[in-house]
């Protein structure tokens, strides 16, 4: 049995935040869950995917976040408790659904989990998705810790049902990827068979219906505001004339700071866990007889501005600060030390924290940037494309492991925006500059939203080449399935498999060729031909991600070695490929046999033919 299904009620477990959230959803009786994978939310999906094999839970990796939320909207309106989860930027993709779903509402609990990533540990931006609650007019819940996350997600379902509105559950990386001790509670039996009751005058979002539904939404929001004032996740701790308002992980840093500074009895805290709508009455009570309030929130000054407006309406003269050059930044994530200094500074307490050691005398340390894996087929494609396109061609790229190709020595990737954007931006560059343009996009990203860009490119007759890096999985986020994946290899029946070449051809692309990227010459020739073609051309480089192949037990049995007698130290292999299996010893190139995956790419480009295969015993 899956580890999150084991364990008696009241038993205590050391869990990752994302495991705790998955368990919380199971305890809540979730029956339907959809997602598009994205860090830092991925482990929630991975666990629910596993659990769905053993239970009645319906779980699906949808091909993008918008589709995931569309399914969720239907299931929640058919009476099933539904979880839809994604990383913060995924909500941008799903936003079109969300804005009108708030009008239509839900019959049963629908929780939209957004995993925000302050500091951008693994994201292209650090947008603050609390704004989505305000934009859509729906509640936002924010847990401060791993154990609270598990309980709070259950409440999120209840709240959604109380209001008949979807609820946003907003985590940050430090909740998703922290571990702590949680206590298991009973698992509610999920209702798994839904029924949809037709009601077009409330469900079909034509203007006449939407006008009515918008009013319902605002009424629900008002109801939520009342709930916010009495919700146990919104509380005041301590008393005094100094106050801190904080949310999410900042609450932990604030509590620890007050303790470290020895001022727990001098400063009170207001912690909104249901942070939209904000608890007006509680804020008023908090501000009354308070001289100074510090608002500690990562990201945007959302609570700060709100609290200031409450003070203004209520004519409360109290100094309210948060985002300020001497206090807290809108940039990146906080930590206990940042918060402690801000608290000490603002209220005028002494900060005697330990000083970091002096690091000014350290030598320059070699970096350890992430690199494409040894033998990654992307490296081969980049090499061939560079030979074919040269330095003048523009190379928009996309989101995935291959984004790393922009780093030296590979240096392929000139413009990366968001999921699926390589094709649209390629069209824009080609039209506006008249230059040769070649877009890179992965298989999962192609299915996610690149396919729309390709369709547009064909219709508008753009002159671009698209190289689809089809590595048969969603590698970057941990090898989740996508519509091109052979699900039988993962032990699943009842899935279909989409053939990228057939899709591309059916869109009317004039030049399509599928190549095996480890064959450098053929790949280069295909890309050269494609670039000569006037109009949209597509090259599909098809080769399983080496890491995924290894996990499936399909790794190669050969490794390559440098024959030191033949090697003349041109170093083309090292300098052009940058495969991490290379190392230099006694001024000679060597290949680490533990890392080599036998792709043979370096052997093909060595001008001395000095690299050859050896069998592993």
């Amino acid at each position, binding site marked *: 049995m899956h580890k999150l299904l084991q364990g008696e009620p009241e038993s205590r477990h050391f869990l990752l935040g994302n495991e705790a959230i998955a368990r919380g959803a199971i305890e809540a009786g979730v029956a339907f869950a959809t997602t598009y994978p994205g860090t830092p939310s991925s482990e929630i999906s991975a666990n629910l995917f596993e659990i769905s094999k053993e239970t009645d839970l319906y779980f699906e990796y949808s091909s993008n976040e918008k589709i995931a939320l569309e399914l969720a909207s239907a299931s929640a309106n058919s009476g099933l408790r539904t979880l839809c989860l994604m990383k913060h930027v995924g909500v941008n993709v799903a936003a079109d659904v969300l804005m009108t779903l708030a009008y239509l509402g839900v019959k049963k609990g629908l929780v939209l989990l957004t995993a925000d990533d302050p500091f951008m540990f693994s994201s292209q931006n650090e947008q603050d998705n609390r704004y989505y609650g305000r934009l859509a007019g729906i509640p936002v819940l924010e847990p401060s810790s791993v154990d609270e996350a598990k309980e709070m997600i259950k409440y999120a379902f209840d709240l959604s049902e109380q209001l008949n509105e979807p609820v946003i559950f907003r985590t940050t990386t430090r909740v998703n990827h922290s571990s702590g001790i949680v206590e298991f509670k009973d698992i509610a039996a999920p209702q798994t068979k839904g029924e949809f009751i037709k009601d077009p005058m409330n469900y079909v979002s034509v203007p006449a219906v939407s006008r009515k539904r918008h009013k319902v939404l605002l009424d629900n929001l008002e109801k939520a505001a009342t709930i916010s004032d009495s919700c146990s996740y919104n509380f005041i701790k301590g008393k005094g004339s100094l106050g801190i308002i904080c949310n999410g992980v900042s609450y932990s840093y604030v509590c620890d700071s007050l303790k470290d500074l020895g001022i727990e009895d001098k400063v009170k805290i207001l912690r909104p866990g249901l942070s939209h709508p904000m608890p007006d009455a509680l804020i008023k009570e908090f501000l009354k007889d308070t001289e100074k309030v510090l608002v500690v929130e990562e990201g945007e000054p959302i609570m700060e501005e709100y609290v200031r407006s409450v003070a203004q309406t209520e004519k409360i003269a109290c100094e309210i600060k948060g985002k300020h050059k001497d206090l807290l930044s809108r940039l990146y994530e906080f930590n206990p030390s940042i918060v402690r200094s801000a608290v000490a500074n603002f209220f005028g307490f002494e900060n005697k924290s330990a000083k*970091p050691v002096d690091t000014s005398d350290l030598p320059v340390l070699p970096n350890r940037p992430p690199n494409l894996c040894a033998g990654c087929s992307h490296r081969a494609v980049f090499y061939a494309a560079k030979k074919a396109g040269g330095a003048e061609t523009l190379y928009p790229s996309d989101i995935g492991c291959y984004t790393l190709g922009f780093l030296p020595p590979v240096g392929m990737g000139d413009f990366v925006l968001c999921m699926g954007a390589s094709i649209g931006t390629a069209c824009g560059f080609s039209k506006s500059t008249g230059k040769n343009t070649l877009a890179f996009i992965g298989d999962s990203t192609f299915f996610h939203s690149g396919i729309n860009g390709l369709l547009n490119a064909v219709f508008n007759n753009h002159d671009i080449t698209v190289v689809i890096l089809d590595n048969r999985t969603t590698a970057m986020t941990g090898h989740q399935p996508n519509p091109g994946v052979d699900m039988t290899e993962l032990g699943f029946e009842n899935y279909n498999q989409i053939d990228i070449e057939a899709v591309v051809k059916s869109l009317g692309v004039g030049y399509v060729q599928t190549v095996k990227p480890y064959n450098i010459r053929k790949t280069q020739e295909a890309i050269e031909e494609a670039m000569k073609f006037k109009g949209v051309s597509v090259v599909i480089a098809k080769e399983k991600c080496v890491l995924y192949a290894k996990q499936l037990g399909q790794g190669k049995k050969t490794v390559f070695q440098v024959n030191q007698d033949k090697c003349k130290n041109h170093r083309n292999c090292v300098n052009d490929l940058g495969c991490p299996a290379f190392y230099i010893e006694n001024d000679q190139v060597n290949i680490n046999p533990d890392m080599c995956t036998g792709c043979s790419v370096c052997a093909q480009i060595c001008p001395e033919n000095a690299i050859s295969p050896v069998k592993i015993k």
Partner: protein
Amino acid sequence: MSNITKLIIVAVGGQGNLLASKILGEAALDAGIQVQMSEIHGMAQRGGVVESSILFGDAKSSIIADGEADILLGFEPLESLRAVAKCNKNTEIITNMRPLQPFTSAIGLAKYPETEEIEKLLKAKSKNFLGFDATKLAIEAGTSLSLNMVLLGALAQRNLIPIGKDLIEKTIREKTKKQFAETNLKAFNAGFDKALELGV
């Protein structure tokens, strides 16, 4: 602050840092000690740095700011040195001294500092320093993959965290894969004995 112990573990992706952290977390749970842990593994599979922080005791935060680690446990000397900003003058450093070259220095584009220099700097920046070739002990125990256990052993010997040797051994036995348990325990004890032998 006194009842809180802050441990930072740094490693290169693939060195087994997260399992080591998890074992300490599980052991704390078993001992009834409050524990918070957080991990950052930006593309760890692709050779990046993996860092985890573990706070034993009455803390709510799960991360450790610069200058605030009580113990720095390093799986690789360069990474220990890179993380030294987490230390203050009272920090104890325990580290593997066997280098794992990053690609930049492996192909001669950057210079990996001499291990003697790394050792000198780490000693100068800490209250106590314990550095040894933990990879060698791991290989002797059966596999280089048990490096994490060797370092856990050394950590246990130094008696810096509120969890004893027996409990960590028990957790290793229960929570690591059956077929590796014996090797893991051997590696753990090798690390323990090495720390005992070297003293500080």
